[in-house]
């Protein structure tokens, strides 16, 4: 049954984004807030805001029982978890189901299965999705050479028993694999009491590519193209774009087909993203994981498809089938998103909460800004430091870069330090303009040159 009153169990820009999507569908909204967020943009925009608890997330946004209790008592028949917080905790949809509330997301069992790396890899393998070539049980130096030769160098050797950087070796040929085995195995014995190693192909310069998926739980799964999120710092994405123009068309078709096959194999419901590593040198891609939620960077897919993914999420949670077919999804142009954080890049990206004293937002053709901020708004110290997402769309990548660049120049925020300056430097860099980036580019190339 279509949702009539939606509970939004999140904060910040995504809470506002969901309120707007619900209002466009004539659905009433109740936003959950902590005591620190009473005055948030989402709270003002919604029909109602309810204060869950104190600012600490563990006592407000991260308490599934509190959240579902509030949803039920405020008369909601649907709940959108946004991203982060409880969005990928299976207990939330389970509590929703027990209380007659439609969860805007996948089935709890799908969340559990996809959240488990081993299960997710097994599901991918079963669906014929390529995984990073590797071998679980390297027991001798001779094994190491044989497996290395089979997988292809360079390879990464690490302790099968433990995590972290302990006993990790990169080998570029058979001799290094044998020597590396001796060293890594000895370290593994010392650290974990077990010298068995795990080996996988090492990709020195990879791109992060992901496919936006949407399933209706009635057997239909569609994709809305792929995104390239290779500008990262400490595995956090800073810039995301769609499509991945570094990928040739035949590979793109395989990528999209792999991702939809994986989702279809579990009759996936609602929005999800299949993440892959793209080995540019070998022209191969390998499955990483599935994120069972709407993602921060969904707007770039919306910009190239002209399709509102959050509205579709809400419709599907209400029991509707997908409102479009794959043939009707026309991807056009190029879109790039910058995540703007209140962080001090000169102090190791120190999160810098505080009050915004000036907020001059850019506008113009192809420009979209998803933000909950305005002049006088407060960034509380309890949560993440994102203040907004600036998205530019153009007929091709060059036009999107030009529009983004102009918008970043126009964007003025005062009161707290932000990453706007860093984004200006990223989009002006020749490597970015010529699209020669990889997941380590920001940390290895750009940041050292600007002393950040």
């Amino acid at each position, binding site marked *: 049954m279509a949702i009539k009153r939606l509970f939004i169990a999140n904060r910040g820009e995504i809470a506002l984004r969901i309120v707007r999507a619900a209002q466009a569908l004539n659905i009433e909204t109740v936003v959950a807030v902590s*005591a620190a967020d009473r005055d948030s943009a989402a709270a*003002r925009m919604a029909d109602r805001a309810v204060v869950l608890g*104190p600012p600490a997330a563990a006592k407000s946004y991260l308490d599934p029982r*509190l959240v579902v209790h509030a949803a039920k008592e405020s008369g909601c028949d649907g709940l959108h978890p946004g991203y982060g917080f409880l969005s990928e905790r299976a207990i939330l949809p389970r509590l929703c189901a027990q209380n007659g509330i439609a969860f805007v997301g996948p089935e709890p069992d799908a969340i559990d299965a996809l959240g488990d790396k081993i299960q997710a890899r097994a599901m991918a393998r079963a669906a014929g999705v390529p995984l990073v070539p590797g071998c679980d049980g390297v027991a001798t130096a001779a094994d190491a050479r044989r497996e290395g030769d089979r997988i292809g160098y360079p390879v990464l050797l690490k302790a099968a028993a433990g995590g972290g950087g302990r006993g990790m070796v990169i080998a570029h040929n058979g001799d290094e694999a044998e020597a590396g085995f001796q060293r890594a195995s000895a370290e593994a014995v010392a650290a974990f009491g077990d010298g068995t190693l795990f080996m996988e192909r090492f990709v020195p310069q990879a791109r992060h590519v992901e496919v936006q998926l949407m399933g209706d739980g009635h057997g239909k799964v569609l994709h809305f193209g792929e995104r390239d999120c290779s500008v990262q710092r400490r595995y956090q994405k800073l810039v995301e774009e769609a499509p991945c123009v570094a990928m040739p068309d035949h590979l793109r078709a395989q990528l999209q087909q792999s991702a939809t096959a994986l989702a279809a194999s579990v009759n996936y419901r609602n929005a999800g993203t299949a993440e892959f590593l793209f080995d540019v040198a070998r022209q191969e891609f390998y499955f990483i994981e599935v994120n069972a939620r709407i993602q921060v960077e969904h707007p770039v897919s919306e910009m190239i498809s002209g399709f509102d993914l959050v509205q579709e999420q809400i419709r599907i949670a209400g029991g509707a089938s997908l409102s479009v077919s794959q043939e009707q999804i026309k991807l056009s142009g190029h879109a790039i998103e910058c995540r703007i954080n209140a962080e001090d890049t000169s102090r190791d990206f120190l999160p810098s909460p505080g009050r915004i004293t000036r907020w001059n937002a850019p506008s113009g053709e192809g420009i979209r800004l998803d933000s909950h901020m305005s002049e006088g708004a407060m960034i509380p110290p309890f949560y993440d430091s994102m203040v907004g997402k600036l998205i530019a769309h153009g007929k091709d990548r060059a036009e999107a870069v030009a529009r983004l660049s102009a918008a970043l120049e126009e964007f003025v925020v005062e009161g707290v330090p932000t990453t706007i300056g860093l984004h200006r430097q990223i989009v002006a860099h020749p490597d970015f303009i010529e699209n020669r980036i990889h997941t380590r580019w920001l940390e290895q190339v750009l940041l050292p040159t600007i002393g950040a």
Partner: protein
Amino acid sequence: MAEPELSAQLLVLLQEFSRSGLRELHIRSGDFELYLSHDAANAGAVMTRNPVVGLPAACAPAPVAAPAAVTVTPSAAAPASALPADVIIVRAPNLGTFYRSPKPGAPAYVEVGSMVVEGDELCLIEVMKLFTSVTSRDAGRIHAVLVEDGAMVEADQPLFAIVRM
């Protein structure tokens, strides 16, 4: 922050309302909204487009203006005359369902006029069948019960007014 100041203002307002003989009072100013009624049945009467708690912009929030109406329960023990200066407001620690008694049908923990000492249980707040009790931090007399039994309360919402003894 302005919160203590605001609470003081609201207490004055409660006092004036009790004294006035008015049956209902409804105030709306910007995002701030307050509804007072002597009729318990009117609790929850206000559900507007934007009943978000709080004064505009930088002001501290006004917890009393929680989405549900604030209902003052008058009683002989709570004289309509001057509200003593030494009033403390007991607030909800988190969102939940407010229960005045330990189980259905049982007498309420406190009534208007009840004397309490520090540590006395005042009510229960339920979240998904998990009940936590709210206790008094002071000794005093219950001056007003500000929420209906069984209503949802939000974090920081005033539950009781106690005159410190």
